[in-house]
């Protein structure tokens, strides 16, 4: 069986779904962030796959590189903020961080 575009798309959709599931169900901020990373990587797979199978030139691959860099930057900032949260709240449970309420 030849691996084609649709295989890649199945993988990326699965990753997206897992990512969304993670973001919605996880209470730990770090786990939520991992869900977001999954979503980004799902998009990444799409870009590379489309670029390869659609003969669209290198635009998609370039985009993937950008995303990898951005994901790293985002993770750095996110972890810094989570660290700060840990210092003030002594936990990183998203559901319990709710001082600001109506």
């Amino acid at each position, binding site marked *: 069986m030849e691996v084609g575009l649709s295989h890649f798309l199945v993988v990326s959709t699965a990753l997206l779904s897992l990512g969304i599931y993670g*973001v919605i169900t996880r209470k730990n901020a770090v786990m939520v962030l991992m869900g977001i990373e999954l979503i980004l990587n799902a998009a990444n797979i799409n870009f590379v796959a489309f670029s390869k199978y659609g003969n669209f030139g290198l635009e998609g691959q370039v*985009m993937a590189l*950008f995303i990898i860099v951005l994901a790293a930057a985002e993770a750095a*900032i996110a972890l810094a903020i989570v660290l700060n949260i840990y210092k003030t709240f002594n936990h990183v449970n998203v559901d319990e961080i709710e001082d600001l309420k109506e």
Partner: protein
Amino acid sequence: MEMNSLYDSLSLIAPELIISVTLLVIVLFDLIFKNNKKMLPFLSTVGLAVALITQAGNLTDGGFAFSPENTPLFYGMLTIDSFGAFFKILVLAASMLIIYFSSTTDEVNESFDRLGEYYTLIFGMVLGMMFMISASDLILIYLSVELLSLSSYVLAGFSKNKTRNNEAALKYLLFGAFSSGLMLFGISLIYGMVGSTNLTALNNFLQTGSINLFTITISLILVFAGIGYKISSAPFHFWTPDVYEGAPISITAFLSVASKAAGFALLIRFIRVGFVSYVDSEGFWKLSEVFDWQLLLVIIAILTMTLGNFSALWQDNLKRMLAYSSIAHAGYMLLGLAVMSDQGVLAVLVYFFIYAIMNIGAFFIVMLIANRIGSENIDDYDGLGFKAPLLGVSLGIFLVSLTGIPPTAGFIGKLYLFIALVDANMIAVAVIALLNTVVSLYYYIRVLKHMYLVKPSTEPPVIKPSFNNLIFVLILAVPTIIFGIYFTPILDFAKQCVQFFGV
């Protein structure tokens, strides 16, 4: 890319370059003169002023910057046009106001040794917004949104030792990263269909290519999630009240005006360049029939303004109340875009111009009062109006203007919005928006009620703002009245700017 075209491109983005250079100067200055933080706001203002002047001188220039090699002539990463110029001027002017705003905010100045980072990050945001406004390629759209977002996450949590700052930053980050992730996935699908990330290519594809309706709908909704989050439209608005209340107030004001302006510019350009097949003689846009933007936007706009207005009714914290009010205003402006005509865009431009003035003004006065009484709670405002007459009257002007009652500028914004709606025969929608205005009166006037009508239980403190702060308030309050009576300048300015290059 040839050198020549690169040079051309660079000259087109002179204001952005000036902002980048200023950013670097601030970083270096902060490294070298560690203890001279007083100069930072000054440096920032100079950088912004130069950029503003450059931009204002370039109001009508049009062109594509950074066209990739081997592409048709009309493809560029950036589109420089007068529509973008309007929003850039708005963003730059708002940023200048915010720089002064920040320099008087106690919340910011408490973290003295980190002020360098503060101003650097502000410039990061400004740069992100400027690129967002001109971006006509999905790659650049995503990158600029992220540049803006990453800087603003940090700024929302700038005071590290404050619980509410931290919470705001975390919520902003989680919502933001999630929705921009979704947007990215949507972009990847569009790329898969179109074969290019350029908006003009998307437009061409929609008019000629074979289209899978299901995929395009999914991908556009995902993209809208990312943009909707930036302009805090329902149902992506949940972060707004928490972040606006938790973040330092200068950042709140900045997010509610500049960041939202960039988001709107992005959304308008996205639809205008990506979907409009042609514009008829009356100025109405004819869209590709693959996706009913009008329906989506009308529904979302009504949801946004109604949710914003009704939630604002119950708020006791003024910052939070203004957060909901800014959600409601995003709803009004979305309605302007939903008209899908040049006139609707004109209404959005006029509205935004006025909204920026009055909203920054309102936040500034809340900040001045919070600096003095240490609270943003409406109950602590009892009787304040008599103790701080000028601040009270100015806040009154801003709030009345936010409601949209003549003779304040806010009325002109609303007027042009409704003119656009009536012109497009969207009467029912206009009625809903008008009823929303009546609802909004209740919570805006509630602030004035506490300031003037309610008898305070304890003697309210006398608030004497400094001379500079008074001037700043007047700079915002006087135009709010003047533009309400004589609004030709705003319209003349906005009218020139409803032009998109290359479409």
